[in-house]
Each structure stands twice: as C-alpha cells, then as structure tokens.
C-alpha cells in the first residue's frame, strides 16, 4: 500500500486545502486509487472549477432546447420529430505533443459525445489555431493535425464540412484543436447518462483498456517499477475503425428498449463515466474491475480506473437485456462485459478479485467539487484607431496581399484532405460561410437542411473581451443567416490561459459576458461546451479564444445561396452599415504590421435585423449569392465571391454626395474595415432588395455588379480574378511544400 505523501497529493494536482476536503469526505486517508479518482473528478477538465460560476450566467434555455449543458452534448428540436445533438471540444495539448493522434482522438471523442445520446453524426467541423507560419514547428503541427482529423473522420465516414484556421505567434507553444460534431436523432429517443434501478447491470463495450493517457505521469513511479514510463504511453492512439463499429452497434442497440443510461468514456475514462452516471441518477455503483477487458498484462485498479483508452462506452441496461446487447456487440466484433451493478448505497465500491480496492461516497465527492470565484481584472479597452491617419495605399495591391496572407489564403489544401461529401447529403462544401447538409429521411416534399459553422476572432477578444465575445456569437449567427439558416443554438469552446492570473480570468469573464449578451439578442442559447484553460507556455498565454460552434435550420436546401457569383449582370448590394472600423483589422496587421486599436463594436440589434432581412430575402429566392463580411472587410468578401465563381465584378465606392458617414470614410476603411453586421449579396432584383431593407430599417446600398474576368474598383483600377486566385490558392500549398525540408 502506497503511503499518501504531500508529494503524491501534489502530483495529483490537488491543493492542500482540496486534500483536506478529501480527508473530510472520506473520514480517513484515501488509498492511491481513491486519490486518483478525487484528482480527476476535481480536475479543471471535469469540474470546471474556475469557470462554473461564470458559465452559469449564460442563457441555456429556449423553446427549441431539449437538453442544455450538463449532458454529453446539447440537444435542439428541429421539428418533424427530429433533434440535432451537437458539441465542440478541445484536444489542444495532446495535439501539440503528437499532432496526428491528438487531433484524431479529438475527433473520436466528440463523435462519441454525440452518438452516446442516440444521434447518428452527420457532420464534423473544426477550429484550428497554429503559431506563426515562420515558427519551425508550425508546418509539422498543421500537417499532422489535418491528417489526423481527416484520418479519423474520413474512416468513420462523417463529412467534415466546415472549419476555420488562424495563425498567430501567441499559439507557438499552444496550438488549439477544437472539434465539433453535429448528429441527428429522433426527438423522442434521446439517451441520457443518469443511471437508475438498483441491481441493473453496468456494461462495458468497445475497445479493450490499455495504459493510454494515464494522468500523473510522474506520480508514485516506484510503485510501477522502473519501466513504468515505457509502460504508460501518454499519447492516446485512435482507432477510427472501431469507432465506426461502436457507432453502428450503439445505434442498433438504441433502437431496442435495452438501455437505461449510457455515457462514453472520455477524459478520465471509467472514473468519470461511472461516477457521473451514478451521481446524476442518485444511485450507488459497484464495479468488478477484474472483469474489465484489458489490452495489456499486469494492469492495476489504479490504471484501469484512470486509463483514457479510446473507443469505449459504459451503459446501464435493463435487467435481462444483457444477452440481446451482447449479441449486437459481438456481431460488430466489439468487446462486451458486464462489469458491475447499480446499488442503493450511494457509494462507489471498486472490487479487485473479490477484495475492495476502493470505496468512495458519490454525492459528497461530486457536490464538494471545488468552485472558485477567482479574482479578475477587466482590461482597459483600447482607444479607437484613427483610420484617416493611415498612409494611403493602392487598394488592389493591398487586396492581393491580403487574399494571399496566412489568415485569409484559401484552405483548400486542408479541406481536400477531409472527405466532405460522404453520406451524400452535402449541400455546401467547405470554403463557404457555413457547411450545409440536407436532412435525410424527411417527409415527402420537405427539403430542410442543417447548417453549421465555427467562429471566433481571437484578436478582437484580446483587445476587448466583451466585444470579442459578442462578435464570436454574432459572426457565427451571421454565417448561418448568410446560407439561409435560422440560428438555433450554439456550443462554446473556451480556450484561455492560466485563470489564476487575474488578467486572464478577466478575459474569460469579459468574453462570457459578451457571449451571453449576444446569445440573448440573437436567440441562440448555449447548449453545450468545453473549457480549456492553462494554455500557456513559459508564462505566455494564447489569445483568448472562445470558439463558437453554431447550428441553424435551413427551410429549403434548394434555396441555399453559395458565396460564388453564379452569373454576370447581377447587382451587388451591401447590407449593413459601414463606418470603416480598421482597429484590429487584418488590413492593419498585414499591411501596416500593427495590431492595435479597438475592435469593431457589435450592435446586436442591428446584427439581428440584418440577419433576419437576409434570411427573408433568401427565403423569397431573391439572393443569387451571399457572403458575410468579416476578416478583411468588403473588398476581401467581394474578391472571395469572385474567386469562388471565377467571375469578376465592378465596385463603386460611395460618391461624395452619398450618405454622410460613408462619404467621410477613408477609402481603405470603406474597403477593408471590419464593421460587423454586414453581408454582400448578388441579386437580380436590387430594387426589391433595397426596398425590403428600407422596410426592415437596415442600411443597404447597391455598390456594383458582377461580370467580366476582373475585379474593377472605380477610380482605383482593376485586377484579374486569375491573379487574385493565384495569390489566394497559392499560399498554403507553397508553404506546406516546404514541410519535409523544414522537418
């Protein structure tokens, strides 16, 4: 029996005062297995101890919400008896250590969160942040992460339909890999994790358990012998083929009435899954750990409880249904073992060959999970940038540089490695504002679809966390509106530095405040999420990155506009107000090498009105192409639409006698300002669009038309679409071609 020294406690990440609480709850000194369980249950990852008090302030309900935060994923009603189940989750640190497996197992984990609740996954998305392109590790990390996401998702057969990628030196030592899955389930057959029914069998299915990712790598190494490092790989390896089998087997079993509760074994594996199921159901549980299917010899109860081996699930079955379930899992060549039963004791009892290896009270441990109100300081909002003081530049040269810059260059090199078409329902491929898939198995005549997007602008969040938090929600919703989808709900992935630093905690608090305001204004409650803190290396934190994943319902997939100009002679109408906000813009960063100023403010009411207008116009069939305005502003958006359609356009900046605000805006600010709440539409019926905008109280102006093979800017000249495409499509392949040489 290992003696629990202060060192061992510290190696388990428990503070002395937290260990005092352990002693109080146990009424004795815990053994190593029990200490390990406390450690993972009270870890930041499982307990949300730094963020919980602030997360509670987010709106999480609405008529469309079937299940909000607290389950494996959020559930939203789509009508027609269908529900969307979705969540986003980070796998940041593992992806930095081993990019292929880290990213792959991230995809595997989020898929399990979604099909655990009864959904067949129908789309994957990902939001990636890498360090500076010049950093020696960036190519290797990007290449491995993309291959890992593709390697897993492609094999499982779920289309990866959308995503976003940023580069910034703040991520040099801490990349971000946030993966999102959206699934579809019958609205009346959602599966939850609360266990019920004393005596009911607890069943383990999926892959065998190995020593993958056991935490506390250095702890008590004496106990495991000197070869323990070799025995305990910290990198988990994904097996997408087994995941595919697990999805099919689980969905097959879910079509019967055998399951009482089900939970995937994610972080902290068997510990957190069994604990959460028992805790939510208010029951006790007794596990016989020697019945757990093992991949390696000589594993201890400690290792079995803390292993993070992938592709495993825990279920509580109705009595007498074990053989039915076993038959299904054996058909799919998966392990199946009854490893315990529910009890009325309110305790978790762990047995090892008949002996008690650990015994913990469930409610006291779960309820006493620490919750901190950490001190925080609000950052000083930066002064607005004076756009008039910037040097004048040739706008088309600036455009060419921008569309070929790392943050705006085409991501084709990435998304061509993702199977974005499998399942045969993809309506909008990657590169669009949002991914859209047609909903399968709808009643005759229904052409509904589901749209999804991931968004965040970390540089805004750093400059002004409240505006940045608002903007992340607003942009996600805007991307949905732009493809003709009504926003339904969001999931968030809060990636921040060390919350014990008041300035970092202030970023978290500010972003959550802004997100909450925007979610309320845009009627997009938060239904699931994940928090990733301590993203710091040598005291240097990442940019605050509260990634938003959002889904929206499309009434008619045949009316979904792409961003590509489809034909010549269409009017270009700019929706929303342009003030010329160049603070924190990509123009300022890429052309002037300055990252400063206030980010564009987000007027939530204007955002909502513009979005509803665009949605209505798309529904009326008046929109031939649509693109939201974000990074790079108006001219970049127009260029992206031209490149996508391989068709030019002409644009006219507002004349001096036009409306006052626009006329006073410097040209660069009008062209590259990142004012929020704006869309660029191509339409055959500009008059009707402008009239609808007037009626809705949304600023709108006809600013040009499609046609030709070049982008022409009145008074500034012309640049061919082919030349823009060379810059836009060229950057990433050229950058990545140097990968092998750089490694």
């Amino acid at each position, binding site marked *: 029996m290992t003696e629990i020294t202060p060192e061992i406690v510290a190696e388990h990440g428990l503070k002395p005062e937290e260990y005092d609480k352990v002693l109080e709850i146990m009424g004795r000194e815990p053994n190593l297995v029990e200490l390990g369980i406390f450690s993972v249950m009270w870890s930041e990852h499982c307990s949300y101890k730094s963020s919980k008090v602030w997360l509670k302030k987010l709106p999480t309900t609405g008529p469309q919400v079937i299940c909000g935060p607290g389950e494996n994923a959020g559930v939203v009603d789509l009508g027609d008896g269908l529900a969307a189940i979705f969540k986003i989750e980070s796998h940041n640190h593992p992806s930095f250590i081993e990019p292929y497996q880290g990213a792959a197992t991230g995809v595997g984990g989020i898929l399990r969160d979604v099909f655990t609740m009864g959904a067949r996954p129908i789309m994957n998305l990902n939001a990636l942040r890498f360090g500076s392109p010049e950093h020696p590790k960036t190519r290797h990390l990007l290449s491995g992460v993309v291959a890992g996401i593709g390697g897993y998702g492609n094999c499982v057969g779920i289309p990866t339909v959308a995503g976003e990628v940023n580069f910034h030196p703040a991520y040099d030592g801490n990349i971000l890999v946030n993966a999102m899955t959206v699934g579809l389930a019958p609205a009346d057959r959602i599966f939850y994790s609360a266990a019920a029914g004393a005596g009911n069998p607890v069943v383990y299915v999926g892959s065998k358990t190995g020593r993958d990712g056991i935490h506390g790598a250095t702890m008590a190494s004496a106990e495991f012998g000197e070869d323990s490092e070799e025995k305990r790989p910290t990198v988990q390896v994904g097996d997408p083929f087994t995941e595919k089998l697990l999805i099919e087997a689980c969905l097959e079993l879910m079509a019967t009435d055998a399951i009482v509760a089900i939970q995937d074994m994610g972080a902290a594996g068997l510990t957190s899954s069994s604990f959460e199921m028992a805790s939510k159901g208010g029951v006790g549980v007794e596990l016989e750990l020697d019945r757990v299917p093992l991949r390696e010899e000589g594993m201890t109860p400690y290792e079995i409880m803390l292993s993070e081996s992938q592709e495993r699930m825990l279920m509580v079955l109705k009595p007498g249904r074990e053989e039915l379930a076993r038959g299904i899992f054996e058909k799919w060549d998966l392990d199946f073992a009854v490893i315990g039963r529910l009890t009325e004791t309110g305790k978790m009892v762990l047995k090892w060959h008949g002996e008690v290896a650990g015994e913990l009270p469930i409610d006291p441990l779960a309820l006493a999970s620490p919750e901190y109100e950490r001190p925080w300081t609000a950052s000083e909002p930066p002064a607005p940038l004076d756009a008039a003081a910037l040097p004048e530049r040739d706008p088309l040269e600036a455009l060419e540089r921008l569309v070929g810059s790392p943050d705006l260059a085409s991501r084709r090199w990435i998304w061509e490695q993702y199977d974005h078409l499998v399942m045969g329902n993809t309506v909008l491929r990657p590169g669009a504002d949002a991914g859209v898939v047609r909903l399968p198995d709808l009643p005759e005549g229904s052409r509904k679809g589901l749209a999804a997007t991931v968004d965040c602008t970390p540089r805004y969040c750093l400059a002004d966390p409240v505006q940045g938090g608002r903007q992340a929600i607003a942009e996600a919703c805007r991307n949905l509106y732009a493809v003709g989808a009504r926003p339904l709900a969001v999931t968030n992935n809060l990636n921040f530095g060390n919350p014990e630093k008041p300035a970092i905690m202030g970023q978290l608090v500010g972003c959550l405040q802004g997100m909450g305001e925007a979610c309320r204004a845009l009627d997009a409650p938060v239904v699931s999420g994940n928090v990733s803190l301590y993203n710091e290396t040598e005291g240097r934190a990442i940019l605050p990155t509260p990634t938003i994943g959002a889904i929206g319902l499309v009434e008619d997939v045949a009316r979904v506009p792409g961003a590509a100009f489809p034909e010549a002679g269409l009017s270009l109408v700019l929706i929303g107000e342009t003030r010329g906000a160049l603070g924190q813009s990509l123009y300022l960063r890429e052309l002037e090498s300055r990252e400063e100023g206030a980010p564009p403010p987000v007027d939530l009411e204007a955002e909502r009105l513009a979005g509803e207008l665009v949605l209505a116009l798309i529904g009326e069939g008046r929109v031939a192409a649509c693109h939201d305005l974000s990074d790079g502003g108006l001219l970049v958006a127009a260029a992206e639409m031209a490149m996508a359609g391989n068709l030019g356009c002409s644009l006219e900046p507002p004349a001096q006698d036009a409306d006052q605000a626009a006329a006073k805006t410097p040209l660069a600010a009008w062209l590259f300002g990142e004012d929020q709440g704006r869309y660029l539409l191509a339409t055959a019926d500009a008059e009707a669009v402008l009239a609808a905008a007037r009626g809705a109280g949304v600023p709108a102006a006809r600013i040009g038309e499609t046609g030709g093979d070049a982008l022409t800017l009145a008074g500034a000249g012309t640049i061919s679409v082919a030349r823009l495409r060379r810059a836009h499509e060229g950057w990433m392949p050229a950058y990545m071609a140097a990968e*092998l*040489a*750089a*490694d």
Partner: protein
Amino acid sequence: MKAKVHVTLKPGVLDPQGKAIHHALGALGFAGVEAVRQGKVIELELAETDRARAEAALDEMCRKLLANTVIENYAIELTD
C-alpha cells in the same frame, strides 16, 4: 514460436513514402543516402513449434493476406 514477416515493395514499384523520407533525410543534412524504400514488419506469435510447418503456414499467410504480391515481396524470419 515468434516470427517476423518483412513486407517490401517490389523493385520498380513507385514508393512515394520512401521518396518523401529520402527527401527529408537530404533536407536534414544526411548526405549520401542513395535510395530509401519503406516496408513493414509484422510480428506474429505462433502456437506451432515445428519450424518447417511454421514456415509453410507463414508463407500461405503472406500469399493470402499479409502481402499483396502484385506490388509486394515478403520475407519470413523465425526468431525463436
């Protein structure tokens, strides 16, 4: 009895992975690498104790599954 099966690409079959490794070695400054071919090693533990029978069984395994003889050669090594 333990066995190792080495599966290698036949001469003349293009090996993009070997090519990429060759390129990377050059970039790392390892001059003088004339060619790289990548293959795989499959380790097996057999209940069979007779070497001849084990080799015969392994040969059949290779032809039926472990190697694709359209593009691959194989070599069998019994280790104990």
